[in-house]
């Protein structure tokens, strides 16, 4: 603590307490006076008679005459002009008023010091008030962080008395106060704490970090910055937010949390449930983990992640040729300081499909099959089922001969278990900081057999070591093992088999080693899920990242440091694919006789190994310095990447036994091997300059000079600049009176980036090995030209403009709006129309197509605390839609072709199809129908078939009758609402998430019945057209799909908008006195769920709105989960 006690002052200003004045934003200018202190002559009056006296000189004179130290900001000192003073033995106070008031300044005296401030600043004090301020008794205390570490620089104030002080490095403070005074503790990044003083003399306080605040530090490309200094559209999600979603896949936890980030989770399969990420509808973003590319982040452990930042506009530009679709930055946790903090998390989850289509029962199946045959014109005598059989299937009197099997129910269990655990330690001292994490997760699959499983282990060690005062080393090591085990049948085929399995067959026989035959098609949904029957596909992947970084603070130049970093990332995969033969049987229950129905599959083993390696070199110079109101930050960086990959696989067949499931044991006659290799690289020079004036006016300029070997030597280097500006309007003087306005900021950005994810080596011609062709007695290698080369091929060129406005008012309400426009040029396409198909070669891809994309993101949040109750609501909505500026296509001349096929100038996500108008109700209606609908004068049509609208009235239905029926399958509206409520030790978090502006196409299996005699959907049975049900929802039954019903039409193209309760978490922190007994300072337990409620249009069908649109029903369904978990700090 520094004391400025120079002498006894005025009686009423007798200094009683030590204090110091430090302001956050003000550079302190001290007038170190050399004037002698006159023991007797030190008066409290001032005499200055001088015209045009400089402000500084006036102050010096006052100090000389009174002995008071004057504290004043350099800003005031510089801006205050000279004065004409005529003071003769004027009391100090009057003298100061005479000097300062005309300049809009005021002062504040404490002890032997005079502080000068602007008059309109809040602490402006009338001299009379000063007297009252100094009353009270000394209160002392220590301010600490939550972990007990002292916290310096905390502003401690008593608002009602305009009294203020700050804590020193040991967190200590002293202030005078009376009982009943409200003492406020304030520090950047921590929640404001207000305490009403009782009669104590010691007041120790612990401050809690603030969750979101303008002072928050946000990770950006190649560095960090304070949120208030951001000039780009950047969203950051902290670990605490991510952890509210009890999921194994980390990427899923971003759902609904980042405005502008669209997530679609198309599969719920364990270990294969990475959602599709799309920033602003741009496409697949670049993912950077701890500064380098290391694959996807879905399988990092949530607990090892500190934050995930999404860069949407110019903020991404520092990644140059790869940044066009935005960037996702994932940052892992690092060590803090102090005692080791051990955190343990554990969660147990049960998952169940959100929904799945219900299939027909045996009775429904038999009834509808006959109906379909009749509809198709089969003679009644030739129908498949007798009336008696249908009745028997329905009433289930004789289940041995007339079974009724729900194959989904037989094959799938209601709930599949999942669990995940994580133990991590974080701590450090002066020289070493560490974070260690060990995580484990397991997801079980849907099948009763238990034969579908995903397991994951994550380990991480992040170390920061101060080698010398100017040299810091960072060593990060992370490893991950993922293993997946599944039946040797693709998920789609398993679902296909379940769907196809006819309900009229029993799933099992008394002899469990004999598998049931299901009629003609050997598919049996039950055995498809069993590894010991069909074989297995085991997949074991290891990921390793090692990163070594040295930071060297360069002497001689203040705040300049150099950094060098090497990151090695390796991904290796081992696959073992074993298939084996199995037989199915028919069973005569009456005589207990089994007869072989079919033998399926073949024993075969394929093993494959794939390796890929990436070495990233990064060398940089960094500078960060503030001069007066000017702050500068600079970065120069070189980045080089080397990568290569290879794989190898081998197959053998004809195993004589299944006992040894190894390659050597297989037959050699049809063995085969395969292997390939690729290499790639990148070199980049990156620069960035940040400049801020007075923290109000912000500028960021970046460039990146990127070289990629994908392109020809003279086309491989690209220059990508960006410029962004920010204006913290609320810091302007003219708004300083507006008390309700906490923050108002305007951001503008422009950037030029690229997308080089296409066109590998297309500048070269040559020949490639192709498949084989048999000549003589053995397959011979063939070669094929790689096609015409385009030496000019290059990356896509993307220009993004973004305007952002963000505000916070009344301390509780926040809002931000970002509006963007992106122009995407040079998209690869082949020229259409310039060459006929008889040319025989496709033109090489050229950078000719272009799109533009526009949209906005809007966020509204409310955060408030009422006593023990606190709430945090945050809603976001985003919209984006892309249009083709130029789509390479023939010049259409036909009006309908222009209307239906032409894409230039049109939105990208538009789908054309036929319009339907109900069903034909009778043969007469078809006979009299004036429109030739099937191209065969309606001879193929039957009652119950769809009617198509003849949009152009030419009396025939053909491609010209198509119209816009919907959008694509990726939503262009996306919204989320995150609500947090907490009361004392309880908290509830609910995340609502939804999407709109996309469609779901009901396809093949779902719109027909009995294709391959397979079972059909119950919804079809219940709502099909029959002569008696003319207001049906679906067409007539048929064996297979009639061509008439197959057209892509509005009938099968459903709006898929949805809103769902994506996650809900209830947590309770156990009271301290309870947790102390088990020596855990913090222990909380929670129950949580995901996908608990969904509102949408597809529930009739049983599809999840996030299901893939193109293969109705044949997918691993999204999961609803229920979780019980605990989190303990040990």
């Amino acid at each position, binding site marked *: 603590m520094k004391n400025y006690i120079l002498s006894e002052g005025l009686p009423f200003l007798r200094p009683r307490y030590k204090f110091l004045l430090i302001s956050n934003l003000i550079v302190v200018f001290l007038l170190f006076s050399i004037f002698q202190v006159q023991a007797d002559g030190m008066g409290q009056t001032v005499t200055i008679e001088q015209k045009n006296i400089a402000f500084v000189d006036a102050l010096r004179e006052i100090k000389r005459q009174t002995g008071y130290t004057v504290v004043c900001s350099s800003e005031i000192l510089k801006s205050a002009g000279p004065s004409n003073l005529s003071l003769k033995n004027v009391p100090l106070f009057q003298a100061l008023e005479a000097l300062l008031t005309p300049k809009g300044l005021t002062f504040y005296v404490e002890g032997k010091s005079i502080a000068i401030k602007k008059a309109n600043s809040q602490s402006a004090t009338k001299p009379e008030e000063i007297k009252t301020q100094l009353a009270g008794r000394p209160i002392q205390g220590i301010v600490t962080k939550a972990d007990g570490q002292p916290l310096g620089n905390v502003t401690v104030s008593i608002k009602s008395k305009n009294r203020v002080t700050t804590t020193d490095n040991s967190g200590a403070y002293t202030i005078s106060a009376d009982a009943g005074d409200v003492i406020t503790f304030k520090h950047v990044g921590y929640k404001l704490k207000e305490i009403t003083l009782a009669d104590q003399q010691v007041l120790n306080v612990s401050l809690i970090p603030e969750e979101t605040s303008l002072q928050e530090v946000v990770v950006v490309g190649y560095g960090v910055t304070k949120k208030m200094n951001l000039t780009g559209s950047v969203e950051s999600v902290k670990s605490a937010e991510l952890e509210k979603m009890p999921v194994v896949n980390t990427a899923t936890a971003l759902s609904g949390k980042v405005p502008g980030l669209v997530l679609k989770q198309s599969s719920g399969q364990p270990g294969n449930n990475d959602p599709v990420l799309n920033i602003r509808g741009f496409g697949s973003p670049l993912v950077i983990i701890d500064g380098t590319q290391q694959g996807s982040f879905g399988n990092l452990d949530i607990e090892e992640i500190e934050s995930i930042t999404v860069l949407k506009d110019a903020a991404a530009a520092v990644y140059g040729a790869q940044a066009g679709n935005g960037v996702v930055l994932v940052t892992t946790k690092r060590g803090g300081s102090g005692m080791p903090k051990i955190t343990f998390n554990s969660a147990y989850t049960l998952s169940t499909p959100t929904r799945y289509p219900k299939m027909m029962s045996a009775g429904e199946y038999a009834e509808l099959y006959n109906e379909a045959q009749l509809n198709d*014109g*089969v003679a009644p005598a030739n129908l*498949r089922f007798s009336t008696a059989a249908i009745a028997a299937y329905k009433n289930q009197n004789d289940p041995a*001969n007339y079974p009724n099997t729900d194959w989904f129910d037989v094959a799938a269990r209601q709930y599949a278990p999942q669990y995940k655990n994580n133990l991590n330690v974080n701590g450090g001292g002066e020289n070493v900081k560490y974070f260690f994490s060990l995580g484990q997760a397991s997801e079980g699959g849907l099948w009763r057999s238990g034969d579908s499983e995903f397991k994951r282990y994550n380990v991480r060690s992040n170390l920061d070591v101060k080698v010398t005062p*100017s*040299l810091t080393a960072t060593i990060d090591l992370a490893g991950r093992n993922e293993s997946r085990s599944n039946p040797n049948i693709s998920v789609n085929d398993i679902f296909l088999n379940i769907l196809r399995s006819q309900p009229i067959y029993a799933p099992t026989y008394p002899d469990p080693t004999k598998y049931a*035959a299901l009629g*003609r098609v*050997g598919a049996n949904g039950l055995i498809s899920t069993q590894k010991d029957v069909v074989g297995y596909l085991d997949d074991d992947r290891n990921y390793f990242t090692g990163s070594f970084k*040295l930071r*060297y603070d360069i002497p001689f130049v203040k705040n300049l440091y150099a950094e*060098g970093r090497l990151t090695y990332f390796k991904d290796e995969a081992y696959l073992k694919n074993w298939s084996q033969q199995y037989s199915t049987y*028919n069973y*005569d229950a*009456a*005589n207990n006789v089994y007869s072989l*129905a*079919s033998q*399926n*599959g*073949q024993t075969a083993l394929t093993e494959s190994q794939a390796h890929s390696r990436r070495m990233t070199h990064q*060398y940089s110079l960094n500078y960060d310095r503030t001069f007066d109101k000017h702050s500068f930050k600079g970065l120069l960086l070189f980045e*080089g990447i*080397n990568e290569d990959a290879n794989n190898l696989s081998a197959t053998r067949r004809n195993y004589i036994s299944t006992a040894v499931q190894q390659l050597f044991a297989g037959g050699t006659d*049809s063995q085969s091997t395969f292997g*390939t290799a*690729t290499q790639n*690289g990148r*070199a980049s020079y990156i620069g960035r300059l940040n400049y801020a004036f007075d923290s109000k006016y912000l500028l960021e300029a970046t460039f990146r000079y990127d*070289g*990629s*070997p994908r392109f020809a030597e003279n086309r491989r280097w690209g220059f990508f600049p960006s410029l962004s500006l920010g204006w913290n309007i609320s810091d302007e003087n003219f708004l300083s009176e507006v008390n309700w306005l906490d923050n108002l900021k305007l951001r503008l950005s422009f950037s030029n980036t690229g997308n080089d994810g296409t066109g590998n*080596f297309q500048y*070269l011609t040559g020949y490639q090995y*192709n*498949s*084989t062709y*048999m*000549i*003589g*007695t*053995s*397959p*011979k*290698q063939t*070669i*094929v*030209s790689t096609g015409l080369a385009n030496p000019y091929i290059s990356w896509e060129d993307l220009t993004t403009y973004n305007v952002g406005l963000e505000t916070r008012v009344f301390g509780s309400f926040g809002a931000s709006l970002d509006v963007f426009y992106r122009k995407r040029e040079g998209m690869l396409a082949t020229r*259409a*129309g310039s*060459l*006929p198909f*008889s040319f025989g070669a496709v033109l090489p891809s050229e950078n000719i197509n272009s799109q533009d994309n526009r949209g906005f993101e809007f966020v509204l949040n409310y955060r408030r605390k009422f006593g023990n109750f606190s709430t945090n609501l945050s809603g976001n909505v985003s919209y984006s839609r892309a249009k083709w500026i130029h789509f390479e296509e023939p010049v*259409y001349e036909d009006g309908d*072709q222009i209307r239906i096929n032409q894409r230039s100038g049109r939105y990208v996500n538009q789908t054309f199809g036929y319009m339907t108008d109900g069903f034909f109700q009778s043969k007469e209606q078809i006979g009299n129908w004036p429109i030739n609908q099937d191209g065969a004068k309606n001879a193929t049509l039957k009652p119950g078939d769809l009617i198509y609208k003849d949009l152009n009235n030419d009396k025939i239905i053909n*491609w010209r009758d198509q119209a816009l029926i919907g959008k694509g399958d990726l939503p262009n509206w996306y919204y989320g609402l995150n609500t947090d409520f907490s009361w004392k030790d309880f908290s509830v978090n609910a995340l609502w998430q939804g999407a709109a502006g996309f469609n779901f196409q009901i396809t093949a299996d779902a719109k027909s019945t009995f*294709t391959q*005699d397979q079972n059909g959907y119950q919804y079809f049975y219940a709502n099909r057209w029959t002569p008696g049900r003319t207001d049906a929802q679906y067409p007539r039954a048929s064996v*297979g799909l009639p*061509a008439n019903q197959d057209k892509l039409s509005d009938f099968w193209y459903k709006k898929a908008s949805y809103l769902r309760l994506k996650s809900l978490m209830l947590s309770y922190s156990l009271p301290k006195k309870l947790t102390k007994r088990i020596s855990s300072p913090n222990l909380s337990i929670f129950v949580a769920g995901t996908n608990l409620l969904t509102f949408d249009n597809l529930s009739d069908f049983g599809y999840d709105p996030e299901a893939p649109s193109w293969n109705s029903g044949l997918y691993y369904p999204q999961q609803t989960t229920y979780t019980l978990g605990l989190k303990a700090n040990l």
Partner: protein
Amino acid sequence: MKKYFFILFTVFLSSCTDDFLDKKPIDRISDGAVFNDPALTDAYIYQLYNELPLHMNSVGWSWNPNGAAVYFPMVVCDEGLQQGTYWEQYVKWNKGLEDASNTYDQWWGYSTIRRMNEFLEKIGGSSLSKTQKDIYTAEVRFLRAFAYFEMVKRYGGVPLITTVQQINTPAEQLFVPRSTEKQIYDFIHTELSDASVLLPETRLDIEYGRATKYAALALDSRAMLYAGSIAKYGKLELDGVVGFPAAEASGYFQKSYDASQKIMAFAQSTGKIGLYNKYPSDPVKNFYQLFIDEKNVETIFSVQYNGLSGKGHSMDFWLAVQGISVGWGQEVNVPLELVEAFEYKDGSSGKLDRTALTQGSYSITDLFKNKDSRFNASVLYQDSPWQGGKIERYSGTYVMENGVEKLVTSPNQTINGKVACSPGGGPYAVTGFTPKKYYDERLVRPLAGQSETDFLVFRYGEILLNFAEAAFELNHTPEALTAINQLRSRAGVAAKTALGINDIRNERRVELAFEQHRLWDVRRWRIAVTDLSRDFSGMKYYYEAATGKYRLTFVNKVDTYTRLFQQRHYYHPITPSRIANSPKLIENPGY
């Protein structure tokens, strides 16, 4: 302190930019290497073979690796109908709904033709010997003729492109209009005439499967026969873009006749080609083995397969009979009309007296034992011996229960040790007959892609039929008769003494059944509109537990839809997308 700085600096300098950017595709062969290296030149040519639709599975719908639906040509004509209706495209085709935007069975082979033209341009500059280059050139010209034949039989006249067009070729040369159908057939003939001179008469075993002189002549024989019959029976339209002047017919028949005769002369003089007759005492086995026994004397040109070891097809997978199959199988049912097209050994009509047959019960093998041996070699039916057992495809069993006769149709009931309804029966035996030709009895549980039976693109039997037809059309009936009787004699069927055009066509229908000829033959004869726009019938077997024999019923319409072949379907559409891309193309009539 400074030393750390130097360490960083040194590391930085040691990583030069070039290290990161000096990358090449490491899986490619450079341009110059190919045509001077015989191994790479061969590899280039093998790719051309690979791309040609030599066997139908090169075109259309791939189901599994190497397992395209090879049975397609059988089920879009009167040789078969597909089991069920799930390959929607076949149904659409048979219903006559194919319109201008038809995408099935399209083969617009210009990318292959470009590779061929490129080869022919570049091989000249090769350092290989002239002899070698001549043979290569002839081989590729044969393949290019094959490619044009595959197009002309689908579309009629197509753009005739014999050079490698460049991007900067002037538009008037780049946008080539359709030649006349005649020009294409004439081009094919010229190319084959030239190629047949330079190609070797036979190939070494290690080159088996590559073009020979007689492959070229066989293609000429077939192509010219097509041209002749289209000239005679078709219509000249679009200024000759499709069809021929009728007067041209005999000229083409003559060319076909000549080509066939050259092959027949070689066959007679050397015996290196001829009719397969390894099992003269068992004509059924003999005719069946003709397609299984690879590289036999009857082979003129075949596509080689080795199953799952590299190149396989899926014929066995699709044809596998139910109860033996792997779930799929029995995809093709043979209509009774084709069964009836096979005569009896004595030369009498194969027509069945359906009314009579619905009375009483029969041994099925007895019923068909006197048929043309090619029938029992080509078709499977109830009780056909197979894999040591017999085919079961009865639809139910008649039993006496308490003195009352009852029909049981559940596969889960056994009667006399036999399942009441065979796994291959019930709703799956629509016609009661399935193809046997090309279905390898040795494959017990065939998998997709497992078939390794070579496909005979040209066999001597076809040449005799081509010759007979051309000779007949040229009024050389006695020569036709001799040729036909060679085939009948091998099959153990009474010789013909007189011939009509329908006799020749029927002989072709039964001899070449399931060999991918019929769908093109009914087109070139212009009889598809009548012969394919009709219903087909089938037979159902019911086991009589008491007698061990079968009762028969007939299904008059086995398709679940009505077949229609429209006049326009004699040619495939050029399609609007190709026309939009090249406005000089004109669409075929009726689309």
